[in-house]
């Protein structure tokens, strides 16, 4: 079995395009300054419609994670699913690419990397920084 891949929508297409370009962008509210993820139509904090796509630094920390005993799809190395807090404040679920998941801990720094999983989709992933 392979990974279930996302189907980009009108609102998420810019995000997936930026991942494909290996230059991930997420939305920032021009009114309250909050970074939002996943892609949204209005700022979930202040309801402003003024959202701009902004590049991220690629730095983050692990908010929490789990190492799956087995993966439902083929993968090199262990499947680590993590909730990563980006430096910009937004959080996203992703994978941590590492051969030594036992060395991971909550709060440890990670940096953005990318994995091309199909012609259309490149997934943003993280590795220990």
């Amino acid at each position, binding site marked *: 079995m392979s990974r*279930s891949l996302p189907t*980009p929508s009108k609102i998420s297409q810019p995000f997936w395009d930026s991942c494909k370009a290996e230059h991930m962008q997420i939305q920032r509210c021009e009114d309250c300054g909050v970074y939002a*993820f996943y892609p949204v139509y209005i700022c979930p904090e202040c309801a402003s419609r003024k959202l701009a796509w902004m590049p991220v630094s690629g730095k983050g920390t692990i908010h*929490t994670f*789990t190492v799956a005993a087995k993966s439902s799809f083929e993968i090199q190395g262990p499947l680590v699913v993590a*909730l990563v807090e980006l430096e910009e404040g937004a*959080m996203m*679920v992703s994978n941590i690419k590492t051969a030594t998941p036992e060395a991971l801990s*909550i709060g440890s720094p990670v940096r953005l990397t990318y994995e091309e999983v199909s012609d259309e989709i490149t997934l943003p992933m993280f590795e220990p920084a």
Partner: protein
Amino acid sequence: MPHPGSEAVIAGIGEPPVGRLVGTNPTELHIEAAMLAIEDAGIDKHDIDGLMTSGTFLNDNIRHHMIIGEHLGLHCKTFCDTLRTGGQSYLNGVQVAKWAVESGLCKAVLLLRGDTTLSGVPKGTGLKAYIDYGAHPLEFEVPFGITVPGVYAMMAQRHMHEFGTTSEQLAAIAVACRKHASMNPKAFKRDPITIDDVIASPMVSTPLRLLDCSPICDGAGAILITSLERARDLKAKPVRILGTGQAQSYYHLAHLARATGARPEDKSRYSLTRSVQSVAAKEAFGRAGVKPSDIDVAQLYDSFTITVLMQFEALGYCAEGEGGAFAEGGRIELGGELPINTNGGLLSFGSSGGINHIIEAARQIRGECGDRQVPDAQLSLVTNVSAVASNHSIAILGRD
């Protein structure tokens, strides 16, 4: 406040066997459960004018209640719906049924669930099928291999990090449920287990092990709700619904962790380890006019051990971060301060969804639990939880 007598009560319960039920199907289980509740109440079927189901994983329909209502021959109803809030649909349904009865909209409402997720799904494909069903957000989490045990595992990992909660403390919850299931001849998993057994069981997704996870299981349940006035003329002992409460937040872990969208002054109240259940609890306890310490027995939704542990804190049984310590020392076993999941819960009784928790809560008030009866149980707390501990419903049941 409804006029005396029009107060809604649980007047009938039905619970077919649970386990691997080969040769049946979800529709048949709904009908079996419904008939048991109708017979338990001794109500004339023609008096049932409200119906709620929760859809099914197998043989679903957009208007699932219509399939079931037609099989039951409930011709003209004045209120119907298919509830879609997952494992917490049932206390949601109890609350809606209560409103329907107390407003005069319905005379009697039947709330049903049944599914064959164990026998009806090929082994090893259930979780994938559940994800594909749309049980979790497909675009931003599923591509990374997230699973249902995985999201609860991430909550457990965070709880351990923040508060020093241990695997042994989580295991104590599974042990208590199994101990109670061993006293329930109807339970799916009845062999007693120890904390060491839980720790030695295979890892599923760190830090949750196999015995931290409720087994996939076939099962069903039915609850009949009518007015106290009407129930007093029926067969079964009426069970009062003293207080109810609900709170729902989000699917995505990121938004749960950040309390996205909450008022700025409320944000610090919520996190991955602090759900909105505290809001539902405040409402339910407030309406019932009782405190957590007044409760005699609790049926706490237990999809995973961590699901229960977090509730000790949100319901007000201990301070934030002390859920692990609360689970220890037999406090949550029969004879302890707060006996939980006396039927064995999802962790050991089986079934799925939250309806069987409500049935056991009502049974404790009726005094029909045999060896696992809490002596003189006056107040019964029951919770339903679903979707990454984001959907919560609570009820406090009591005697007539």
